[in-house]
C-alpha cells in the first residue's frame, strides 16, 4: 500500500495544490495528514481498531486496458496529426557533417485514422534503392480500418527500410529512410541501422531492473545497473506467441526479459513491463476488464509532466515492476486527474452508531455494512451524488445504488461492490460483504462484482486516521473517505461541555455534476442517518 501512496498520491496532491490556488492550504493540510498516516503505519500503533476491514483511498474499481505507454512514446500519436499526409519528416543532419547540405528524411508511420495507434506494413511498393518521385506510392499500410497507399511528398531514393513487411510500428515511428541523392544513401543507411538497432537501448535495460523504463532512463552518468541478482541457468527462453509479438513491436530484447509466467515463461505482461507499458491484456473472464473511459483530454500532459520532475534513482535502489493490479491502480490514478474534483468534509457524531454496532456485532454485522447502508440510504435521497458524468456533457443517473468498498489485498486494491445497498437489509448486506471479501481474497470476483459501483466508500479509521482525502475513481461521481471515530470534547450552544464520539467523513466529488450544496446536503442527511442509527436496522 505504501508504494501506491508514494507513486500515486504525491504527484497528484502537488499538482492539485498548484492548479487550485484556493485549495492550497486545504491540500497541504491533507498532505500533512498523510504523513501522519505513514507515521501511524510505521509505528503500528492503531488506536481504535473498531473497523474490521482494511481499506485505502486509492481505488481500482475498473482496470482499463491501455495500449499506449505513459512514457515518452505516448507523445508520438499526438505528434502525428500535425504532420500532413506525406508521412515524411525531414531531419537536418547531425552537426558533425554540417558541411554537406544533405537532406535525409525519415518515412514514418502515418496516422490513417483517428483511432489508429499503430499500423502494419502490408507491403513495400518500392524497394531499397528505388528512385521515388513526389506523389508515388511507397508503402501500403494497414491501419485498424483499411489498407492505404502512402505516398511520398518528396523526390529521392528509398535508402533503407526500417520496418519490414508484415511488421508493425507505432504511429510516428520511422519505417524507412529517404535520401535525396545517391551520395547520401550510405549515410541514410547508417541512420536506418541506428534506428532499428539502436532503438533497443532506449528500451529497457536488461533483466534485473525491467521496470526501469517506466521511469525514463536518467542521463547515463551512472554506470551499468547492479549485477544480476539471480544467476540464470542455461535454460531456454520460452515466450508466449503474444509476448513475442509485443517484444518485436516494442523492440524489446526477449532474451533480457525474465519470465514470470507458468514454468518461468515470458508472458505478454512481462514484455509490457519491460517496455514500460501499462498492461493491455484483455483476458476475458479474469479480473482484467475493459471499461469505457471517460473523456480525458488532460491525460497526456499529466503523464508527460510527471516523470520529467522525477529525480534519478538513488544508486543501489531496487525497482520492482507493478503487478497487473498495481498497474491498473496507477493507470486509474493518472486518469482521475482529468476530472475536476473538490472535497467537502463533515463531522459526524457516532455515539448512536457505536451503540448499534455493539448490539449487532454478534449477529455478524460489520462496520463496513453499517457505513455502506448509511451511505446508500443517504444516496437514495440525493440521487445526484449517485450519478456519474460519462461524457462531460450529461448526468448519468444510476438506477441502482451500488456501494463499492475499497479493500487492500495482496499488495493491491480492489473494490468489491455491495449492489443495491439501499434495498438490502443490514444482515443480508453483512453476509453479502463477507462473501465478497472471501471471493476477493480467492481472486474469484466476477467483473460485475468489482466494477459496478456507483459510489465508493473508503475507510482508514481502523488505523486511527482521523481524516484523509480519497481520489475519485474514474466513472463515479463521488467517494467517501471515513476517518476514525474519536472521543471529542464538544461545547454546545449553552456553553456546556460534553464528550461525544466524532468521526470525520470527507467526500470527494466530480464538480461537473455534483456541486458543493449537493454534497453538503448529502452529508447532512448521512450525518442524520448515522446519528439516528436505529433507522439502519429497519
Amino acid at each position, binding site marked *: 500500500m505504501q508504494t501506491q501512496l508514494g507513486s500515486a498520491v504525491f504527484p497528484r496532491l502537488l499538482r492539485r495544490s498548484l492548479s487550485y490556488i484556493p485549495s492550497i492550504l486545504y491540500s497541504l493540510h491533507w498532505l500533512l495528514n498523510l504523513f501522519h498516516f505513514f507515521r501511524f503505519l510505521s509505528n503500528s500503533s492503531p488506536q481504535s481498531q473498531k473497523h474490521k476491514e482494511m481499506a485505502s483511498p486509492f481505488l481500482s474499481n475498473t482496470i482499463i486496458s491501455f495500449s499506449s505507454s505513459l512514457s515518452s512514446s505516448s507523445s508520438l500519436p499526438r505528434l502525428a496529426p500535425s504532420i500532413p499526409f506525406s508521412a515524411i519528416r525531414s531531419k537536418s543532419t547531425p552537426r558533425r557533417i554540417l558541411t554537406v547540405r544533405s537532406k535525409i528524411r525519415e518515412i514514418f508511420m502515418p496516422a490513417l485514422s483517428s*483511432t489508429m495507434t499503430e499500423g502494419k506494413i502490408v507491403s513495400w511498393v518500392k524497394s531499397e534503392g528505388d528512385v521515388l518521385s513526389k506523389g508515388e506510392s511507397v508503402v501500403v499500410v494497414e491501419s485498424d480500418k483499411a489498407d492505404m497507399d502512402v505516398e511520398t511528398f518528396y523526390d529521392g531514393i528509398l535508402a533503407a527500410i526500417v520496418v519490414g513487411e508484415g511488421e508493425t510500428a507505432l504511429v510516428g515511428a520511422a519505417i524507412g529512410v529517404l535520401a535525396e541523392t545517391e551520395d547520401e544513401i550510405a549515410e541514410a543507411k547508417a541512420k536506418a541501422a541506428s534506428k532499428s538497432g539502436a532503438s533497443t537501448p532506449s528500451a529497457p535495460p536488461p533483466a534485473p531492473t525491467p521496470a526501469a523504463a517506466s521511469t525514463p532512463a536518467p542521463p547515463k552518468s551512472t554506470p551499468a545497473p547492479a549485477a544480476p541478482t539471480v544467476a540464470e541457468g542455461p535454460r531456454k527462453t520460452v515466450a*508466449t506467441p503474444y509476448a*513475442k509479438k509485443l517484444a518485436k513491436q516494442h523492440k524489446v530484447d526477449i532474451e533480457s526479459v525474465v519470465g514470470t*509466467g507458468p514454468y518461468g515463461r515470458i508472458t505478454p505482461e512481462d514484455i509490457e513491463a519491460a517496455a514500460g507499458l501499462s498492461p493491455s491484456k*484483455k483476458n476475458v473472464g479474469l479480473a482484467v*476488464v475493459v471499461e469505457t473511459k471517460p473523456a480525458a483530454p488532460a491525460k497526456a500532459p499529466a503523464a508527460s509532466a510527471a516523470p520529467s520532475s522525477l529525480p534519478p534513482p538513488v544508486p543501489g535502489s531496487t525497482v520492482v515492476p507493478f503487478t497487473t493490479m498495481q498497474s491498473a491502480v496507477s493507470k486509474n490514478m493518472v486518469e482521475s486527474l482529468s476530472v475536476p474534483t473538490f472535497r467537502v468534509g463533515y463531522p459526524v457524531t457516532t455515539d448512536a452508531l457505536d451503540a448499534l454496532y455493539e448490539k449487532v456485532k454478534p449477529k455478524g454485522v460489520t462496520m463496513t455494512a453499517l457505513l455502506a447502508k448509511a451511505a446508500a440510504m443517504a444516496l437514495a435521497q440525493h440521487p445526484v451524488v449517485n450519478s456519474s458524468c460519462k461524457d462531460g456533457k450529461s448526468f448519468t443517473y444510476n438506477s441502482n445504488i451500488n456501494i463499492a468498498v475499497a479493500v487492500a489485498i495482496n499488495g493491491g486494491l480492489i473494490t468489491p461492490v455491495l449492489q443495491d445497498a439501499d434495498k438490502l437489509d443490514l444482515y443480508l448486506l453483512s453476509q453479502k460483504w463477507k462473501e465478497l471479501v472471501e471471493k476477493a481474497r480467492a481472486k474469484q470476483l466476477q467483473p460485475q462484482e468489482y466494477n459496478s459501483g456507483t459510489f465508493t466508500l473508503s475507510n482508514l479509521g481502523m488505523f486511527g486516521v482521523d481524516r484523509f482525502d480519497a481520489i475519485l475513481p474514474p466513472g463515479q461521481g463521488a467517494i467517501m473517505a471515513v476517518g476514525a471515530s474519536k472521543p471529542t470534547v464538544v461545547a454546545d450552544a449553552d456553553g456546556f461541555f460534553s464528550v461525544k464520539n466524532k468521526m470525520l467523513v470527507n467526500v470527494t466529488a466530480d464538480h461537473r455534476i455534483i456541486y458543493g450544496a449537493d454534497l453538503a446536503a448529502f452529508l447532512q442527511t448521512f450525518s442524520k442517518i448515522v446519528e439516528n442509527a436505529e433507522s439502519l436496522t429497519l
Partner: protein
Amino acid sequence: MHSICFQATGVPRSNYIFDSCSPALAISKPINLRFCGLRKEAFGFSGLTHSSSGRVRFSSRGHSKKVSASAESNGSPPKSFDYDLIIIGAGVGGHGAALHAVEKGLKSAIIEGDVVGGTCVNRGCVPSKALLAVSGKMRELQSEHHMKALGLQVSAAGYDRQGVADHANNLASKIRSNLTNSMKALGVDILTGVGTIVGPQKVKYGKVGFPDNIVTAKNIIIATGSVPFVPKGIEVDGKTVITSDHALKLESVPDWIAIVGSGYIGLEFSDVYTALGSEVTFIEALDQLMPGFDPEIGKLAQRVLINPRKIDYHTGVFATKITPAKDGKPVIIELIDAKTKEPKDTLEVDAALIATGRAPFTNGLGLENVNVVTQRGFVPVDERMRVIDTNGNLVPHLYCIGDANGKMMLAHAASAQGISVVEQVTGRDHVLNHLSIPAACFTHPEISMVGLTEPQAREKAQKEGFEVGVAKTSFKANTKALAENEGEGLAKLIYRPDNGEILGVHIFGLHAADLIHEASNAIALGTRIQDIKFAVHAHPTLSEVLDELFKSAKVKAAALSHGPVSEPVAV
C-alpha cells in the same frame, strides 16, 4: 418433403475435411506418407470408442426367423430381402441417403453402433459451430475499435466456460434428436450395433456380448465416416493433449495451446481459443499455413486471422513427440524439420490440440468377405461410389459414401453422395460433380470455396489449352458489409473467358459460407457467367459481392452469342 427441408436447413455444413484427401485441396505428400504408417494407432484408438458405445436396441420387424435361414445360405446372395437398402452408419451421409431412399419408396434401415448423427453432429461441425458462434460474439464485443465505430459502448465482456460448453453440447443433442426423429417419422428402421458385411447383400449387426442379427438388403451403403487422426509419437490424454473430440467439450481454456495442423479444424479452433483468451501456436508440416486454400485467399486469411491475433506458428516441421503435462511439467512438443528430419525445436505449452486431419473408420467392416481391401483405410470406389474389389471389379450392390471413401471429407459431400447412390439404385444414373460441392471454414470472417483454386485452374488450362480469367471484388465496396463495419474481405472468381464457365469461386469475408451457394449452384447446374450476371440481387445485401464478381468477369463476345440471354418478358 418436410424432412428434406429439414435436412437442408437443420444440419449445418461440415467444415471437417482431411486435408490431403479432397480433390479440391492440394494434396500434401508428407502427411500422406506418415499417415500410411500410422493407421494402426489411429484405429486402435477408434475401436475403443466404438465398442464402448451402443445403447438402445431397436428390434426390426420380423427378421428374426430369417436370421437362421440366411445364415445357412451364407456366401450366396439371398433371393428375397429384408430391406431394399441398408446403410451402415447414421451420420449426415447415411441420414441423407436414408431420407432420399424413403422418398424414392425404398424400404430402408440404418445401422449405428454409436450415436445417431455421426462425427458432424456429435463431435464435429455442429458443436464447433456453437463454439464459433460464441467466439464470433466475443470477438465483436472485445473489439473496442469496432464497437466505437458503431457508436456502441460495451464493458467487461466475459464468458462462463461451462455455459459455452453447455451450449455446444445442447446444440449437438438437439440436432441429434432432430435427425433421429426425422428418420423414425419416415419409417427408417434404426438398427443398433456394429454393422459388418458378411457376404453379398448381407449384413450382421449387434452389440458386443449380444447375439448378432443378420439382415439382407438389395443394396448396401457403407457410411462409417472417420475419426481424428493422431500421428505416431503423440500421446493423447484427453486433458492437455487433445483431439477435436475433446476440444469440442471445452473442458478447459488453456492459456497457451499449440494446434498441430493448420487446416480447417485447426483454424476454426484457433478462432475459438483466441477469442476466449488463449494464445495459440500453430505447427504445420507444410511450408505455409492453410494449405489447400487458394493462395491469394490464404494470404489474406493469414493477414486477418493469424497475424493480428495472439498466434505464432512453426511451418515446415513435424511434431514427432508430444508428451502431456504431468509431474509439474508442461506439455512438451518436440519438433523436427519436415525435410531434413533434424531436431529443430522443443515447445513448452499448456495444451496441444491434434488437428492433423481425420482417418477413415473402416476397420471391422468385414470387407474381406466381399474381397475388398482398403487403401490407407479408405474404401476404394468409382465415380458412382460403387465399391471396387481387389481385382479392380465392382462389387455389386455395395456402395461407400462419405469420409470412409475419402473422396471429399465433408458432411454435405457424404449426403450428396448418398443421394446420388439412391438415384442410381432406383434406376436413374447419376454422377455427382464434386467440383460443385462447396466447402467452408467458419472463422471470423468466414472462408468458403467451390471448384478449383487458381493454380489448379491454371494447371488444367495448360493441359486442356484454354485461357483462365480471374475476377475479384472486395467487401469494402459492399454497402451491407460496410454497414456492419466488416469491410475486410475478398471474393475471387476463376473462369473461362472463352465460354463463361465458372471454374472456381473463393470467398473470404463476412458470411462467406452462406454466400458461396450462388456459385456452387451455378457450377452444379452449368450456369454460365453471361447468364447469371443478369440475375437480380436484393440491395443492399452481401450477395451483391457475388453479383459484382460475375459482372466484373470479362467473357468474350463469341461466347455471348450462343449463350442465349433471356430477354426480359413484359407481364
